[in-house]
């Protein structure tokens, strides 16, 4: 899924999930601030296998990959500030 030296954010969501809808503008703002990062939205209804592969047990769920390997994850609603802190940790 990822290329070398890249950071990717897997955004596990569902259309019927209210907290996931609330996170959409937050993720969009985060993505805008970091154009070098790839954001991959994953609808768990269409991608059951991927959700299982990454052990997603609650949504929304945000999984950061660095060079294709998971480095951080957060489940549930999070403010932009927290995503930025996670970004800082990954790139720090």
């Amino acid at each position: 899924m990822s290329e070398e030296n890249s950071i990717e954010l897997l955004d596990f969501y569902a259309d019927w999930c209210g907290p996931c809808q609330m996170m959409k503008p937050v993720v969009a703002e985060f993505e805008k601030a970091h154009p070098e990062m790839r954001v991959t939205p994953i609808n768990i209804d269409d991608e059951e296998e991927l959700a299982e592969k990454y052990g997603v047990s609650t949504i929304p769920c945000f999984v950061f990959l660095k060079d294709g390997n998971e480095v951080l994850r957060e489940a549930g609603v999070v403010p932009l500030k927290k995503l930025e802190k996670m970004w800082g940790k990954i790139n720090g």
Partner: protein
Amino acid sequence: MKEYDVIIVGAGIAGLTAAIYVARANKTVLVLESKIHGGQIINTFKIDNWPGDYGVSGANLMQKIYAQAVDLGAKVEYEDAVGITKKDDKFTVVTDDNEYIAGAVILAMGTEPRKLSEKQTKDAGKRAISYCATCDGALYKGKPVVVVGSGNTAKHEIAYLKNIASEVYHIHHDDPIPEPAVAVFVAIGRVPNTGFLKDFVKMDSKGYVVAGEDCHTSVKGVFVAGDCRTKSVRQLVTASADGAVSAIEAVQYLG
């Protein structure tokens, strides 16, 4: 240190309604929220008892109310309130990132699901633990799950999961987790998010902030709105009503 006329802790329906009223009274207002605005109702897919917007989703409704509050001048910061003190007639609210000063404070932190007991958490081991079947049920299609709890919420969670999971076990608080279950859905009530207040205001034995319909707490200048207040009916519309009352009272207090 930034100073506001009113600081509201919590950006659910109570907090954001209060923010609308304070802003419209031409007072400066800061809303502090630890996660994301919207509160508990964002988990509800369809609301049939909010007058005027029949069938609206919780997320959609709260985005509209948030936009309204911000448009009217409310400032929202996503920081976790961790302490509050009073000196003379000013309040200092400490967050994980900053300190803010205000002439009045409105507490609107709402409630959160009561966590699984230590014993059952240990028993659950590596199984997933969820506090919302409608949010997470779809992740367990055709798999056995267990619901913990004995109230109405537990009954609703069981009915919902029966259409998804291969088997839905039902246990009570502190029963052992059935071996085959791959996920544990917890529905054992809710607790108020009032921990950071410590002994700052009077609370009941369950941690709800004591106040009547006027939303006045035991501390002059501190008001409480919504589900974290002692009350008998906790609905979206009553939380919103508390927001209005607390804001009007706070503005009157400030003079």
